[in-house]
Each structure stands twice: as structure tokens, then as C-alpha cells.
């Protein structure tokens, strides 16, 4: 039998007994095993989440108590908060880096790259990803990208300050604000590395799902988790390259004197810039061509994972599996053609605005069907409120609430009023903040036993859930109303405006809730670390679930499946088949033993 070259890469590390022989470094650090890489992504992402959370603490300190002097914090951060008073430039860097780190380095790494890598081969019945070496490379480029982004805090002028969207001219003129200097250059380089790494990951996801499914695992027998990773990887492949193009042009504008995004007559620091003829809107078009599909890249896996956790704790199939799949596909297609709804106030033609409004509202149809089906999955089920289930219910709650706000923002007429206010901040924190965060926690509690062979503590998990869910809802629900009162985002000294002074009380409540939320994450971190060492030993299938990863040991051995790959006989939601004692039937059980219901 011939080998094709890519297989040579994993020949080097083949098999369980070979894996036992390779040293610690090849096994746990420079490993090509998808499970190790997935966990590496998750740990890196969790570290970045801690950084992003600390930035949010500083933001909320400023907004809750604008005049207060934080002497101790000032000693820790002498550059940004000399004497305990935050500088406006530092505030801009904080919001920029908080957004960038949470979107690209936390949610993308943990939920998409982390769980994607861990779950896809296990759930489709493959021994590893299609290109294991590329997979390893993807992680190390991702780590480099994160390090470059973190390094930007320590260069002259500090981190980038042009917002996570990096709109020019702030991002294109190095002398604009301190963060527009080296910080912005490193931001662009880090994003280029991120895109390269994410592209490698996506290639692996698509090829593995497309090509390495076990026998009997037809596309319509794949779990919704795998389906959502599949759609999200395709979106990543198609939507990320345009940002690479934009980043190249932005670098040239900054360092080589071109004028892609810089118009003529621009005066910065009392100096007329030599640029002419460029258009800042061009950046917005290219950025949002990436940026909008990117939010679906993140939220689709969150929804897919939620749909897979539900049946394990309702003991009945997910409602409307086929429709869910079609909805995922429809959302994927539509997400590529709605980017203009981020630019309603950019002076676009009203006809374009009309189109983008219609296209955006069209997306709400498959998304609503998806959400209603998730609720339908609860109907008549025997609910078991474990921590993973609570977080999944939280996903549904946030998805409904946040999605409702999206109706207003997707409509050009309403968006004209709400654009760049806290209404937007509240909305996107519910969606790509909350839905994805809660799904990440649900997934961590659900698959932790599979990953590490031990279970997380359930009681502390529930405390963690309530101290996450209630403060999170408070913070971002209230921010919608701040937006309705006209409070603009990214304003450091909002109290300078008389009409905003009466929002002070609300901002204090939001800050207290936000600090509670952040403090509660310490419970999670403690539970995570404690359970790694001391958690209760987990059996192969602690949740009595049906997908393939639960048919192997916890943690699964190198190569995932022992002597032979599994053969799949049924869909992944075979729960409570009538007339049979066991209320779940794994996908590998033959139809002779238990009839196939779908």
C-alpha cells in the first residue's frame, strides 16, 4: 500500500507504544496528537482570558469611579495610571486590547481551535487530524501570535489603541496617538500570524470532517458540534484572507508612504500629512468582510456544542436535527453578505443600507428556528441540572436576549441612533461574549472528564454558574439601556457630558456586577486546577452520552480508537428508544440490538 506524503508526518509518531517511547517534549509539547494540541490551545486561551479579564477590571474601575485615585494600581502600572489616575490613551489601549484578546485569543483559541481540535477526530471516528504536522504548526504560530500581541504592551507608546476594529486614520498614522506607533504595528503582525494559524486549523477541520469520517458516519450522522465546526472552518477559510490583504495595505500606509486608507488634507499634530486620495471606508469594507463572518465562526460552534450537551441531560433527541443542519448552512452563507450593517452611518447609499438591512434580517430566520429548536429540545425531557446543563440553558437565555437586540441593530433606521452606543456593546457581549463564554464553560465542564480522566467539582461548578450568569446578564442587559440614553462607547470621561452624568449610578452598579463576575472566575480556575489533580476519577461515559468519544477510555489513548476504527450505525441522538431499558444508544450499537430511529 502506498503512502501519500502527508502521512509520513504522522508515521514518525505512530501508535500507542511508539508514543510511550517518545520523550516528554515530543509527547506533550511538540506533539502532533490532536488531543494534546487541543488542550494546548485551551490552556493558552484560558491564560489569555485572564489577561483580557484584568483589562476589563481596569475599564470598569474607570467607568464606575471616574475620579477615584487608585494608588495601588498606579504603582503596578506607572505608565498608564501614573499616581493612580488613568490616562485617556491608556483607556483606549485597554478597550482595544480587551476586545482583540477576548475575540481572537480567548474564544477563538478555546472554543474553536481548542475544542475543534479535541473533538472533531474523536466525534467523526478518526485517529487524528488530516494533516497532523500542519496542526502542530498551527498551534505554535498561534502561540507566537499571542506572544506578539502581549509584547505590544511593553513597547514605546504602549499597545494599540485604535479599537479592535483598527479603523484608520488612527491605525494608519503612526504619530496619531501613542498606541498608533509600535503597538499598532505589532497588532497588525500578530493578526497576520493569527490568520495564518487559523487558516491551517481550518484546513485541517474541513479535510478531516470531509475525508476521515469512520465507516457509516455519513454527513447526516455527524453531531451538530461537528457540523458547526465544519461551517465555521469554511467561513474562516473564505473570510480571513481579505483581512490579510487589508493588513498588508495598512502596513504599507504606515511604513512605506502609500495612500490606500488615508485621504488628502489630513492634519495630525498640526502637521499636514503627504497622503492623498485614500479612503478610510475601504478599510471598513475589508475589515467587516472578515469581521462579520468572524462572529459566526465563534458563535456557530457555541450553538453546535449547546445542541450536543442538551440531549445528554434531557435524555431525548435534539429537536429538528436536520433543520438545525440546514440552518447552520444558511447562516454560514448569509453571514458572508451582510458585512455592510456595521457601516450604516458611514454615508453609504440608502439603497445599500436597504439591502444590508434585508440581508441581516433574513439571517434572523434560520437563527430563530435554531433557537426555538433548542428550546424544543427541552420539551418533555427529563431535565438533569448539572453544571454543564446549567451553562447550556444559559446559552439559550443569552442567545434569545442578545438576538432580540440584534433586530434593532440590523435595521438601518434604528441603527443610525444606536450605532457606537452602549446598546451595541451590550448586544455583542451577549452574543459573541456571553453565548460563546457560557458555551465554553459548558464544554469545559462536559468534556473535562474525557480530557483529563477526572471530573470537575459539581457543587462549586453550580456556584460558578450562578455567579457568572446573574452578573453577566446584569452588566450587559443594563448596557442596552445606557445605549438608549445615548451613552457612546469608548468614552473615557463620559461624565464631562451633562446628559450622561445621571447614568453614573447605573455605571456603578454595572461595575460592581462586572467585578463580581470577574471574581467568580477565580472559583472556576481553582476548581479547574484542583480537579486536574484531585477530581473524582471519571469513567469512559460519565454522562451516558451517545457520540463516539464516549465509547473510548477517559482520557482516550494515542490514536483514539484501539485495534479497529468504530463503525457507525445511527445518528448521534439515539436517546430513550421505546421498549429498551437503556435510555441511550451509542452510535456504534448495531441496528440488530436496538432499532435505528432516525
Amino acid at each position, binding site marked *: 500500500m502506498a503512502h*501519500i506524503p502527508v*502521512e509520513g508526518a504522522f508515521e514518525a509518531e505512530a*501508535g500507542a507504544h*511508539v508514543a510511550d517511547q517518545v520523550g516528554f517534549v515530543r509527547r506533550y509539547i511538540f506533539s502532533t496528537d490532536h488531543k494534546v494540541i487541543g488542550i494546548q490551545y485551551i490552556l493558552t486561551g484560558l491564560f489569555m482570558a485572564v489577561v483580557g479579564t484584568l483589562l476589563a477590571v481596569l475599564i470598569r474601575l474607570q467607568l464606575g469611579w471616574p475620579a477615584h485615585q487608585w494608588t495601588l494600581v498606579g504603582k503596578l502600572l506607572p505608565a498608564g495610571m501614573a499616581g493612580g489616575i488613568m490616562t485617556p490613551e491608556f483607556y483606549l489601549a485597554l478597550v482595544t486590547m480587551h476586545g482583540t484578546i477576548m475575540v481572537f485569543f480567548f474564544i477563538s483559541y478555546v472554543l474553536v481551535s481548542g475544542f475543534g481540535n479535541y473533538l472533531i477526530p474523536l466525534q467523526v*471516528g478518526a485517529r487524528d487530524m488530516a494533516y497532523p504536522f500542519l496542526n502542530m504548526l498551527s498551534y505554535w504560530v498561534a502561540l507566537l501570535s499571542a506572544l506578539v500581541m502581549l509584547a505590544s504592551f511593553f513597547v514605546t507608546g504602549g499597545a494599540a489603541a485604535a479599537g479592535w476594529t483598527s479603523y484608520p486614520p488612527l491605525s494608519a498614522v503612526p504619530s496619531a496617538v501613542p498606541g498608533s506607533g509600535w503597538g499598532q504595528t505589532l497588532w497588525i503582525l500578530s493578526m497576520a500570524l493569527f490568520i495564518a494559524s487559523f487558516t491551517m486549523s481550518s*484546513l485541517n477541520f474541513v479535510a478531516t470532517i470531509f475525508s476521515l469520517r469512520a465507516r457509516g458516519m455519513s454527513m447526516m450522522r455527524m453531531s451538530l458540534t461537528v457540523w458547526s465546526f465544519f461551517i465555521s472552518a469554511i467561513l474562516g477559510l473564505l473570510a480571513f*484572507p481579505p483581512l490579510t490583504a487589508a493588513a498588508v495595505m495598512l502596513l504599507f500606509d504606515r511604513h512605506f508612504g502609500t495612500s*490606500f486608507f488615508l485621504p488628502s488634507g489630513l492634519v495630525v499634530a498640526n502637521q499636514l500629512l503627504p497622503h492623498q486620495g485614500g479612503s478610510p471606508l475601504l478599510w471598513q469594507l475589508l475589515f467587516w468582510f472578515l469581521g462579520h463572518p468572524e462572529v459566526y465562526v465563534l458563535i456557530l460552534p457555541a450553538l453546535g456544542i449547546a445542541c450536543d450537551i442538551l440531549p445528554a441531560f434531557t435524555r431525548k433527541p435534539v429537536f429538528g436535527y436536520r433543520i438545525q443542519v440546514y440552518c447552520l448552512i444558511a447562516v454560514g452563507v448569509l453571514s458572508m453578505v451582510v458585512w455592510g450593517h456595521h457601516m450604516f452611518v458611514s454615508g453609504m447609499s440608502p439603497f445599500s443600507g436597504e439591502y444590508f438591512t434585508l440581508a441581516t434580517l433574513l439571517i434572523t430566520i434560520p437563527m430563530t428556528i435554531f433557537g426555538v429548536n433548542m428550546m424544543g429540545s427541552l420539551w418533555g425531557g427529563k431535565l438533569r441540572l448539572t453544571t454543564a446543563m446549567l451553562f447550556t440553558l444559559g446559552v439559550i437565555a443569552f442567545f434569545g436576549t442578545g438576538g432580540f437586540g440584534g433586530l434593532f441593530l440590523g435595521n438601518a433606521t434604528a441603527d443610525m441612533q444606536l450605532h457606537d452606543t452602549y446598546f451595541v456593546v451590550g448586544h455583542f457581549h451577549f452574543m459573541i461574549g456571553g453565548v460563546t463564554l457560557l458555551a465554553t464553560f459548558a464544554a469545559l465542564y462536559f468534556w473535562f472528564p474525557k480530557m483529563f480522566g477526572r471530573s470537575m467539582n459539581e457543587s462549586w461548578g453550580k456556584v460558578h454558574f450562578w455567579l457568572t450568569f446573574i452578573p453577566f446578564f446584569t452588566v450587559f442587559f443594563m448596557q442596552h439601556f445606557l445605549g438608549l440614553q445615548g451613552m457612546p462607547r469608548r468614552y473615557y470621561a463620559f461624565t464631562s457630558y451633562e446628559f450622561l452624568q445621571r447614568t453614573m449610578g447605573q455605571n456603578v452598579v454595572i461595575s460592581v456586577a462586572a467585578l463580581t463576575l470577574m471574581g467568580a472566575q477565580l472559583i472556576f480556575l481553582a476548581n479547574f486546577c484542583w480537579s486536574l489533580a484531585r477530581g473524582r476519577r471519571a469513567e469512559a461515559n460519565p454522562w451516558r452520552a451517545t457520540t463516539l468519544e464516549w465509547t473510548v477510555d477517559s482520557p482516550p489513548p494515542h490514536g483514539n480508537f484501539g485495534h479497529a476504527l468504530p463503525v457507525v450505525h445511527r445518528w448521534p441522538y439515539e436517546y430513550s428508544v421505546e421498549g429498551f431499558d437503556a435510555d441511550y444508544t451509542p452510535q456504534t450499537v448495531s441496528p440488530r440490538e436496538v432499532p435505528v430511529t432516525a
Partner: protein
Amino acid sequence: MTRQSVSLPWPHAADTESVQRHDLVQLGVWMFLATVVMLFAAFTSAYIIRRSASDWTPIELPWMLWMSTAALVASSVAFERGRFASKRGQAASARYGISAAAGLGLIFLAGQVVAWRDLVARGVYVPTSPHSSFFFILTATHGVHVVAGLVLLIYTVTRIWDVGVPLDRGAPARLIAASATFWHFLAVLWLYVFVLVSVF
């Protein structure tokens, strides 16, 4: 969808596991090309938008571009002749055809560098006009992909150089097919870029 039976390298696994549904190299190449298409689509839309500004002054393109174009097209033809030879089992002419393709690819890159030097000698730099900015960025981006293609071609040549390796089936045939896809794509992409910068 052809089901290929490949032996997987897990020692504890059964000898053959019939799992792989597609040629992974070819599939990977096609997906990568999709990302390259999106990259150049973004550059194209930027080009069209930027072109509508009043300060767009076209630069005179170097005649050398025609030479490099000829070299790249000839390279594609040479590769295709080599590939046909490999299918008919004529290993020697296959090796020469694909090696010639790699050589012509190098000549193409040299031609691009000469074209750049010609522009610089005439005082046309990256920021001289939006047209020159796009010209340099598009040719450089394409050039980077050609360098990647050359690495793939040279790798292919080394893999098929051993006399006695049959080229009409198995791994060598799939490798040749995948690098052919990539290499022809780069030629077509260059024709596209050339038309874009010279006509529009």
C-alpha cells in the same frame, strides 16, 4: 468520491482501514487555493474602489513583464507535458518536463525582479502613485506564492528522481497531480493580475 484504501501507521490498528475518502494532498491544495482566491478578490475590490479616486495616475508597465509572462506560461506547458509523460509511464521525460517547469519558474521570478528594477530606475517607487502601490503589492504577493510553488515543485522533483519509482500511480502520481494544480493556478493567477494592472 473514490474510496482509497490506505494503510495507516498505527501499529496496533488493523492492517488496512478503509476510512480516507479523498486524496488529502489534492484536497488541501484546493482549499488553500480558495483562500488565495479570496485574498486576491479582496485586493481586486480595493483596486476597483481606489481607482475611482481623482489621484489615480497610471504608470507605464515594464516590457519585461511580457517576458516573465511567457516564461510562466511555458513553465505550465512544460509541467503539463511532464505530467502526461508520467501518466504514460515515460519516467525520464516526466522528470525533465517537471524540472524544466521549475527552471522556467525561477526565470519568471528573475523577470519580475528585473521589472521592479526597471521601475525603480525610472523613479517609480511604491508610493509614487496608487497604481504603482498596487503593482508592487500584487506582484510581490503573487511572487511569494510562486516561491512557495517552487518549493513544492523542487520537492516533487526530488521525490520522483529515483529511477525505478513508477510515476503513473500511488503517492508520486498524487504528488504530481497536486503540484500541477497549484502550479497551473499560479500561472492563471498571474495572467489575471497582469490583466488587472495593465487594463484597468
